[in-house]
C-alpha cells in the first residue's frame, strides 16, 4: 500500500473484493437508517435538539468538565487528565502496573485506537484482548478498524472463517455465522474470567450525575466494565453533556443513525465502583480524559463544531468516496468524512493535509449527520488553511500546502481581472496560443492528468460580442 491517500485509493479501487464488501455493507446501512428516520419532521426536530445539546455542552465545556469531575470523584471514580496520547498511555500503564495487572480485556474504544494503546501495553508485557467481535477479528488479522462502528466491515465470512481456523485451536473451517460467533464467545468467556482489568471507551459523560454512558449490542462492554476487579475508561474531553435528560434524545439519534436500530441492546450507565455490600462490579473505576489536540480545535469557533460528533458513522455510510475506497485508505484511526475533518486537526495539516481533498463536497454527510456538523464547510476551511493560513490559532500545520507558484498564479489572476487592458490582452493572446500549450506543460500537468485540456475558442467573448455589434458597454 502506498503512503498517501491517492495511492492507497488507487489500490483500493482495484480491489474488487473490497469494493463488493463495502458496497453491500453501505447499501444495507443506508436503507436501515432511512427506515428509522422516515418522518422528516420528527427527524428535523430531533436532530435540531441533538445538535443544540452538543453545542450547549461545548459552549460550557470547561465548566462541565469541572462539574463532572467533582461529581465523579464524589461517587468514587478516579479521574485523570492527559494532554497527549503518550500521556494517556502512561497513565493507563501506571494504573495497570499498580494493580499488577497482566491481562486486559477491552470493550470497543476508538480513543484507545487513537492512543495505539494495545501496542503500548504489549511493549510493556501486558496483553490486551479485544472482546467486541469485530475488534477481535481484526486483532487476529493484525489490522486496524476500517469503520468506527463496524470495525471489520471490510472482511467477508470466508476471510473470517480462515482467520478463526488459523488462530483458534481446534476450530474447524466454517462460514456459518452462528458457529463463528459461538467460537468467539467461548474463547472470550475465558479471557473475561481471567482478565485483571477491563478497558472501555465512553459514549457520553453526564456532568449532572458524574455518570459514564456506554452503548453496545454484544454485552462485551458490560462484561469488560463489570467482571474484572478494575475498570479503566478512556475518552475525549468532548464527550460531556450537561444533564441526564440530554441522553434520551442523543440515544434516539445515535443507534438509529449508526446501524438503523431503534436502540442498542444495552445502555450501560456507570456512576460508581462497587459499593460496600454490592456483590459485583469493579472495585476501582478510573476515567482518563484525553485532550490530544481537542482543546486546540476548540479554540476556533467554526472548527469547534467538529467536537459535536457522537461517532455514529452515518457520514461514512453515506459517503460516495468512503464506500468506494474503504476505511483503511484514509490511513488514520477515524476514516470517512468525520476523519477528513478530525484527523488533520488532531495530527496537523502537515501530516494529514491530503484528507480534506478526499471529498467531492457532495454534502451527503452533512445531510445525515445527527448533530448537524457542517462537514463540507469545515473541509473547505481546512483546504484554505493548508494553502493560505488565517490568523486563527486553531489549525496545526496550517500553511503546509502553501505554494509560491500557486500564490503567484493567483496574484497574477487577481491583477489581470482588476485591469481591463491586461485582461483583454491576456485573453486575446490565449485565444491565439492557448491551443499550442501542451497538456503536459509544467503547471498544467497535474490538473490534466485526470481531465482533458479544454479547447480555446479562436476569439474571446469580447471579440465575439463586438462582431455581433455590441459596444463595450
Amino acid at each position, binding site marked *: 500500500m502506498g503512503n498517501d491517500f491517492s495511492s492507497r485509493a488507487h489500490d483500493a479501487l482495484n480491489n474488487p473484493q473490497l469494493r463488493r464488501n463495502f458496497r453491500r455493507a453501505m447499501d444495507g446501512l443506508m436503507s436501515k437508517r432511512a427506515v428509522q428516520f422516515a418522518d422528516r419532521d420528527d427527524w428535523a426536530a430531533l436532530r435540531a435538539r441533538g445538535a443544540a445539546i452538543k453545542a450547549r455542552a461545548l459552549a460550557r465545556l470547561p465548566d462541565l468538565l469541572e462539574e463532572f469531575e467533582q461529581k465523579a470523584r464524589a461517587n468514587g471514580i478516579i479521574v485523570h487528565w492527559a494532554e497527549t496520547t503518550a500521556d494517556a498511555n502512561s497513565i493507563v500503564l501506571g494504573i495497570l502496573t499498580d494493580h499488577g495487572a497482566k491481562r486486559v480485556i477491552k470493550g470497543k474504544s476508538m480513543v484507545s485506537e487513537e492512543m495505539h494503546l494495545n501496542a503500548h501495553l504489549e511493549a510493556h508485557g501486558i496483553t490486551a484482548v479485544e472482546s467486541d467481535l469485530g475488534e477481535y477479528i481484526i486483532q487476529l488479522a493484525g489490522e486496524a478498524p476500517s469503520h468506527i462502528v*463496524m470495525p471489520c466491515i471490510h472482511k467477508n465470512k470466508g476471510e473470517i472463517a480462515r482467520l478463526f481456523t488459523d488462530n483458534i485451536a481446534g476450530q474447524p473451517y466454517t462460514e456459518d455465522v452462528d458457529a463463528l460467533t459461538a467460537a468467539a464467545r467461548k474463547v472470550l468467556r475465558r479471557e473475561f474470567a481471567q482478565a485483571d482489568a477491563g478497558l472501555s471507551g465512553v459514549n457520553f459523560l453526564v456532568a449532572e450525575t458524574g455518570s459514564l454512558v456506554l452503548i453496545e449490542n454484544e454485552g462485551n462492554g458490560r462484561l469488560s466494565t463489570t467482571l474484572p476487579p478494575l475498570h479503566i475508561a478512556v475518552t475525549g474531553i468532548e464527550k460531556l453533556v450537561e444533564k441526564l435528560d440530554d441522553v434520551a434524545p442523543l440515544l434516539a439519534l445515535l443507534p438509529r443513525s449508526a446501524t438503523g436500530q431503534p436502540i442498542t441492546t444495552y445502555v450501560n450507565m456507570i456512576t460508581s465502583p462497587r459499593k460496600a455490600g454490592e456483590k459485583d462490579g469493579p472495585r476501582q473505576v478510573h476515567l482518563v480524559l484525553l485532550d490530544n489536540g481537542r482543546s486546540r480545535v476548540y479554540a476556533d469557533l467554526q472548527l469547534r463544531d467538529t467536537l459535536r460528533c457522537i461517532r455514529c458513522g452515518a457520514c461514512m455510510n453515506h459517503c460516495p468516496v468512503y464506500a468506494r475506497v474503504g476505511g483503511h485508505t484514509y490511513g488514520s484511526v477515524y476514516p470517512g468524512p468525520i476523519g477528513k475533518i478530525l484527523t488533520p486537526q488532531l495530527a496537523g495539516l502537515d501530516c494529514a493535509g491530503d484528507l480534506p481533498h478526499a471529498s467531492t463536497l457532495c454534502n451527503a454527510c452533512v445531510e445525515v449527520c445527527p448533530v448537524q456538523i457542517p462537514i463540507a464547510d469545515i473541509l473547505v476551511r481546512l483546504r484554505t488553511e493548508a494553502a493560505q493560513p488565517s490568523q486563527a490559532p486553531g489549525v496545526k500545520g496550517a500553511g503546509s500546502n502553501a505554494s509560491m507558484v500557486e500564490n503567484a498564479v493567483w496574484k497574477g489572476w487577481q491583477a489581470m481581472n482588476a485591469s481591463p487592458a491586461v485582461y483583454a490582452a491576456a485573453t486575446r493572446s490565449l485565444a491565439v496560443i492557448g491551443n499550442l500549450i501542451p497538456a503536459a506543460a509544467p503547471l498544467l500537468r497535474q490538473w490534466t492528468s485526470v481531465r482533458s485540456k479544454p479547447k480555446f475558442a479562436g476569439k474571446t467573448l469580447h471579440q465575439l460580442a463586438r462582431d455581433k455589434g455590441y459596444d463595450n458597454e
Partner: protein
Amino acid sequence: MSDARTAILARLRAAPKATVPDLPEWTGPVFADRLERFRIMLEAVHGEVHVIAADQWRPHLRLILSSKDVGRVMAPPELAVDWPDVVAYDRPAEALKDQLVDGIDAAITTACGAIAETGTVVLRPDADQPRLMSLLPPIHVVLLKLSDMADNMAGLMAAQDWAGTMPTNLLLISGPSKTADIEQTLAYGVHGPKELIVLVLS
C-alpha cells in the same frame, strides 16, 4: 497529571466564547397501546414477551423454564421462584465466578421500569440482584410490572427521577445480546444472554 488538568482547562477557558444555544422543543412519542408497542419492539429483536396476571407468574415461569430445558436457575430468594434447582447470588462474584460463567442456565431478575417506544426494560442491579445476573447466564427472565412501563425514555427518566437517584449501575436492556459484525448477519448470544424473556405482570 494535575498539570495537564490545569493546562487543558486554561486553554478551554481562553478560547472564544460561543453563545449557549437554547434547546429546541422536542418530546418523545406516546402510544395509545403501550404494551402492544413494547411487545412489537421487543419481539422484533428476538425478545419474548408474556403478559400474565400478577398472581400467576410462578406457575407460568415454571412452564417456560421446563420448555427450555433449564437446569439450574439463579434468583433472589425473596422472589420465591418455584423450581427444583434455584441458587441465590449470595456471595461476592469472586466466590461465585466459575458458577456464574458456566454453571447457571437462567437468571430471574426484576425490572424497575420499561420503555414502550424501544421495547426496553430498565434494571437497577443491587446487592440482591447483582449486575452479572442479567449478563452471564444464557437465559435472562425479567419480571416487569405493567404499571412501570412508560411511553419513552425521557418520560421514564422524569417519572423515576433518575438524575437524583443514579445507582452504581443503571441498565437499559432491549433484547438478547447480539452482533452483526460478520457481514451484517445477526447472531444472538455473542457475549450476554441468548434469550431475553419478559414477564409483564398485569
